[in-house]
């Protein structure tokens, strides 16, 4: 099998899919994201089914505040944009730009995570909504917490890649790796858009 690619004249235009291994990873990861979508859908369904089960505890509209969620949304959406730009740099074989943009992505991701932890802390200690308070509390924390766990994993993934490949430049081996991490990051972002709509907007808008 010929997975050798001629790199004597520089990287091919799509370095992430130039080798068979890269192609396989690309397809496999998309399938994985399909599975992840269904898993999140199950958690969304659980939340939608149980969000009115407050058992006398705090309700969604009492707790949520749009300004905080707006800031979090902006942070995550911007991090997705910088992640796209990083991939553009990768395709142009601009290693330095790619690394800078990935660093920005990671910083924005950590900011988002900080706000989320602050949000949970507020709800538990000042809002009176714990994980065990009601079915609404359980389903809220598990859905948004699962997303937060994905963000955390994504951040550590980016950091591992950046440390490992800090000096190598873009190669046909690491291009698919950066590309998949970026795909994963977009997926997390899309899930957040749904959380923003289904969890927060629908609660505050009263739908």
């Amino acid at each position, binding site marked *: 099998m010929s*997975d050798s690619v001629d790199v004597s004249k520089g990287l091919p235009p799509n370095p992430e899919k130039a080798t068979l291994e890269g192609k*396989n990873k690309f397809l496999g990861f998309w399938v994985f994201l399909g599975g992840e979508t*269904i898993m999140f859908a*199950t958690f969304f369904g*659980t939340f939608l089914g149980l969000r009115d*089960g407050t058992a006398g505890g705090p309700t969604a509209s009492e707790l949520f505040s749009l300004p905080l969620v707006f800031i979090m949304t902006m942070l995550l959406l911007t991090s997705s944009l910088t992640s796209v730009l990083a991939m553009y740099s990768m395709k142009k074989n601009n290693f330095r730009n790619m690394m800078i943009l990935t660093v920005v992505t990671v910083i924005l991701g950590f900011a988002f995570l900080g706000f989320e932890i602050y949000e949970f802390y507020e709800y538990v200690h000042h809002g009176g909504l714990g*994980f065990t308070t009601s*079915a609404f509390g359980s389903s809220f924390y*598990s859905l948004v917490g699962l997303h937060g766990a994905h963000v955390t994993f994504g951040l550590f993934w980016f950091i591992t890649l950046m440390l490992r490949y800090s000096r190598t430049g873009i190669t046909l081996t690491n291009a698919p790796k950066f590309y998949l991490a970026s795909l994963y990051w977009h997926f997390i972002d899309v899930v957040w858009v749904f959380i923003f709509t289904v969890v927060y907007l629908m609660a505050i808008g009263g739908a």
Partner: protein
Amino acid sequence: MATATATNTNKSVLWDWLTTVDHKKLSVLYLIAGALFFLKAGAMAIFMRIQLMSPENTFLSGQTFNEFVTMHGTIMLFLAVTPLIFAFMNFVIPLQIGARDVAFPFVNALGFWIFFFGGLLVSVSWFFGGAPDAGWTAYVPLSGGEYGDLGLDFYVLGLQVSGLGTLVSAINFIVTIINMRAPGMTMMRLPLFCWTSLITSILIVFAFTPLAAGLALLMLDRIFGGQFFNPGSGGNPVLWQHIFWIFGHPEVYILVLPAFGIISEVIPAFSKKRLFGYTAMVFATLIIAFLSFMVWVHHMFTVGIGPITNSVFAIATMAIGVPTGIKIFNWLFTMWGGKLIFNTAMLCASSFVPTFVLGGVTGVMLAMVPVDYLYHDTYFVVAHFHYIVVGGIALGLLAGTFYWYPKMFGHMLNEKLGQLMFWMFYVGFHMTFFIQHILGLIGMPRRVFTYLDGQGMGTMNLVSSIGAFMMGAAMVVLLINVVYSAYTSKRITVRDPWDARTLEWATTTPVPEYNFAQTPQVRSLDPWFYEKVHGDGTMKPAEPMDEIHMPNGSILPFCIGLGLFVWGFGMIMMQMENPLIPEWIVIGAGVIVTFGSMMLHSIHEDHGYHIPLDKIKKTEKEVS
């Protein structure tokens, strides 16, 4: 890429098998693990039938019976049939599509070890106060914190881990079939076993993820005080049933579709005809897969969801009969006018057809909502699904075993013992399960550990038990056959002992680690048959002879599986009364081993090695 030197020298046998990423070796590992779990769950079934042999029997206590019912179902579906199917998928798919290995050999090994350690986690529950006892469906509140004991924690965590292994394996198979096909092997030339494996893998990706979510919810409820299924705090127990059956119904098709695929390989091979209606078969498979996600409420007709919902799901369920009927007729027409050879593989495959029809007919009966209120939770249901899983899947797996055994192990299974096994199994099967339809119709509920005398159930239960013993004896004959044939059967040196049609028979026996010295050029459906008739009996190569790139073995899949086992066990320790060591140490160790191994794999670039040309030429000369 840098050429590392060949590293496969001087490895001990054990280390070789623990670190292997070769799809053929992993297939053998799957086969052994699946067979062991199968024997365990089968023994439980025998014990249950001994208990039910006579009214008010006291052979097993009610608690033990409940544990056996639960473990029999759980093991058979998740830990026996799934790995046995994966054994065949692993061995056959790369050979049938003309590939050197699967797309991700590392992930292949990872899938096996995660599955294995997950199965182990479920199994060790016996040593910690008893196995799960809430049925394989683990309905809440029976499986919740209030009623379910420690065994349920093993169920939840063990299945979570083993499900993860199944999921990554499925992703691997999807990518393999789509990306790794040999030149000329278009999708519509794909052997039907590959098609059904592809569809099964897609179903796994979309069905095992809801299961993972559902098990996570149950775990959060049990261990961390979640309120998902607690109506007192706004939760809803029916939610579990929905999530479970959104997984549970496709699961049936996940298991039966590869069996369909095996049948579709075996019947043409021993009818000496091409498969009738190949295209219709492919599209029937696709339709079955699509509909399988549309019918889960038929397991919940008696919950009280409402007549409209029930009707919609009833009609969707009956609709599945149409594509399945297409398949049945295609198998019949394949045999029609063929030169039939009734060896053990063909006996299993052809008897599959009428048996499966019986299971399908009772399935359509169960789909009718009003009468389902009568059938629900009786032995009629037990009889129905055993006609599918034993009469369908088990016969398919037996057919596959006898058909591919010479390619996998280099010798055939003894034909006399094989036919003895078949007849004992087949007669025993119908004796066990046909009569259970009637038991159900006269009102015997399922999952009860005993029944009263004088209700007309004694004789029929005795007949059923005798049938079960016959099936058990048939499995013993199969085991004897495996050992006997290993010592007495002639080594096979030809490529194609069955005079079959598909590409796996174009490889030499035994199959070299790189499968094909030169990737074959596929010119038709049933490419091997085409070359035998229209060509010179050998596959045309699609590439010049060159050195072959191979992946290195790795111990990391084993480590990740072990790490997940330790993590799962630590989570269960949170529920134990007095664990010997603090549970967070165990959980932490498991997490560190798992993610540490993943990180090591990510950081360490392993480009594999190349087999030099002269070594390939030497191997090719030896085997041909």
